[in-house]
């Protein structure tokens, strides 16, 4: 380390052959590359190297026989999965829940960020911001327990309130119709505050001169919001929406698993819980890997699809 010269003086002026450039570039920015190295290594070791494991989706994998001893079964696992009577129910439940999330949860942080942006008292704004981050740090188990305590028919506050107001009791926890709203409400309560961070950052970057000019032109609050604020954060919204689309088949295992019971399983079963019950509790590793792979492929297709659409409509997209 001691012998390494601080900087090569050659770099700035002389341009040797192309092949050499890579090395010289490497050498010039070696400290930057060194900084990059742990991160790259992390992705390599924990994300890329284990990827060959998806090959067991095409096997009848038995842990004792190991990867090399297990039989290859081609696409049998996929066939079984698509022919399974559960498949369409799972797909339907997963997609409907995702749609609920995109329609009801996705706009929530944007609206909240816009509201916060209009707040003029800095102290108030900061306090609110800090408080709404809190639910994000709560474990899903706690959120589910809170929901249970509020909504149980045996003395839950919300249930009691509903039966006093409307004269009949609704069993939110076991109802087929209330399962999805309940899940989305939980998500909104837990994640809206945290979701505002990115939008607030985008809002902070809007040029204040635009507003001044608009005020001079006689634009009111609503006009400013519509013609300046929203267009300025449009690209942020689009990028987050694309990422959200890619995760359409991910519903968050923990939350669904905790809220499922015998009476609402019909609408609650999604791919994530299915992979758990088949893969971990029944030990069908190959089959559940096939399901996981299917999910991942659909996710990639959706990301590319929505990115394509975004670019078509004049946005920059994510790649």
């Amino acid at each position, binding site marked *: 380390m001691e012998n390494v010269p601080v900087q090569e003086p050659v770099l700035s002026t002389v341009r040797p052959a192309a092949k050499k450039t890579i090395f010289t570039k490497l050498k010039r920015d070696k400290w930057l590359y060194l900084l990059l190295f742990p991160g790259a290594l992390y992705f390599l070791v924990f994300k890329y190297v284990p990827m060959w494991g998806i090959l067991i989706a095409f096997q009848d994998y038995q842990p004792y026989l190991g990867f090399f001893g297990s039989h290859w079964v081609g696409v049998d696992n996929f066939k079984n999965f698509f022919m399974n009577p559960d498949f369409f129910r799972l797909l339907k439940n997963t997609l409907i829940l995702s749609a609920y999330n995109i329609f009801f949860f996705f706009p929530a942080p944007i609206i909240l960020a816009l509201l916060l942006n209009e707040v003029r008292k800095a102290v108030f704004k900061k306090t609110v911001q800090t408080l709404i981050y809190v639910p994000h740090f709560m474990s899903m188990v706690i959120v589910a327990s809170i929901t249970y305590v509020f909504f149980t028919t*045996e003395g839950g506050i919300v249930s009691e309130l509903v039966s006093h107001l409307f004269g009949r009791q609704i069993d939110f926890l076991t109802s087929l119709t209330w399962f999805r709203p309940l899940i989305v409400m939980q998500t909104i309560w837990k994640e809206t505050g945290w979701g505002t961070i990115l939008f607030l950052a985008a809002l902070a970057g809007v040029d204040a001169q635009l507003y001044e000019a608009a005020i001079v032109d006689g634009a009111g609050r609503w006009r400013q919001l519509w013609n300046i604020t929203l267009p300025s954060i449009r690209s942020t919204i689009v990028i987050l929406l694309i990422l959200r689309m890619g995760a359409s088949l991910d519903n968050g295992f923990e939350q669904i698993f905790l809220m499922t019971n015998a009476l609402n399983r019909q609408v609650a079963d999604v791919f994530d819980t299915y992979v758990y019950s088949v893969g971990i509790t029944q030990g069908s590793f190959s089959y559940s890997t096939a399901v996981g792979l299917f999910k991942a492929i659909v996710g990639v297709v959706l990301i590319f699809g929505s990115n394509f659409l975004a670019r078509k409509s004049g946005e920059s997209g994510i790649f």
Partner: protein
Amino acid sequence: MNLNKSWKRSISACCLAPLMVSVVVGCGTSAQQGGTTAAGQPYTITIMSDSFSPDHTDPKSNPVIQALDKYTNTDIQIQWVPNSSYADKINITLASGSLPMVMLITDKTSSFVNAAKSGAFWDLTPYLKDYPNLSKANPIVLNNSSIDGKVYGIYRSRPLGRNAIVYRKDWLQNVGLSEPKTINDFYNMLVAFKTKDPNKDGKGGTYGMVVSKYAGPFDIMQTWFGVPNKWGQDKDGKLIPAQFTPQYLDALKFFRKLYQEKLINQDFAVFDSTKWNDPVVNKQAGVMIDVADRANVLLKTDPNMKLGIIGAIAGPNGLKSPATSGYAGFYAIPKESVKTESDVKKVLAFLDKLNDKQAQDLLWNGVEGINYTVQNGAAVATKQSDPDTNSLTQLEMSIPSELYTKAAQTDTSKLVDQVEQANEKIVVPNPAEPLLSNTYAQKGTQLDNILNDARIKYIVGQIDDAGLQASLDLWRKSGGDDYIKEINDAYTKVQQKK
């Protein structure tokens, strides 16, 4: 990039530090494998088992483990896994490839059956006869725990007639009824517990029976109606699943009535089974249907409660109670960690020794003088919950019988023993218990879910008779038909052998 030297050094140090750490950690956590040691040295045995308590004394300072080490001339290393996630842990451990030498298997899941069939575990059948305790294992339970007649593990024995009704005796006296004998009596008791202010507090709010989302109580109650224990026989001698017997619907209609008249808690479908005791202790509910020794657990929370226990209620076919499988999991020996036959024999000798009276005492009570004392021939624990012995009771196999010094019998614990013994005469065994089905191994969870969900939906009135029929058809279509066929094939094979 104009960085000075010290900066560069600290950056490189920062980048390299995590790498170094991961390398060191990677080396440090290589699996601890026990096994061969020099003669005379204690033999190291690693065990993975389930535990109901997170509170353990450090093994190095735990007098009970030290005494066990000494008694068996072994260095025992136990890995405790919470009971609630034990099934997941089995599959993960099997997949990880680093297995303990003795591993508790709780269920004959497909992953275990496949592993055993492909030779991952030692077939212990030929060895058992050589050990004084293990040779006396109950043949029925051994058969129940076997896979295709081969014994892959040493079972933990449990009473066959363990299921019973536990109720508040003081409540029954308060409402002026006598112990129920028939299903109708039982119903009247629940009605009285709801309407006649059994706890004498002048307020309502009580109900008959508390049920949790664990479906066991319904399984027990439906045998009163003559529903078989999971599998029954039709007139041609073929095995049919319980839900396809005509009595099943009678039982379900009764449960529905209990629910509609609010004699059982209305939120049972979401009621967590860890809170199951609470309504009885808090004087809200008067009846619980579970294992008979639930009464002992209830008394621990409130020693002043007066509890009654009934083995079974007479239905159209007299007294019936479903038999348990007679075991709660078994200890299997993986070939991965126990390589040679002489090592298997050492491990078996160790497991055999754990069934000696002295070892049973250590596992159940701990070390005499430290964890318990003996007064009038009964064990008296020095602490109410002792981290030294908390989970070690899980290693108790009690083959051929329970030899440890028991705690002084209370009226209730005497009653528990009586009911369990009386139940042995009326138990309905599950004829398919030792039989294996590939379909069930692969789709068992889904099949059971369809069935349990349908039953609960019917009880709360979410579906009617037609809906129930549709669910049963779905069960057949989702693999149930193959399951029935496979079980019957296996059954005929066993019958032909006899």
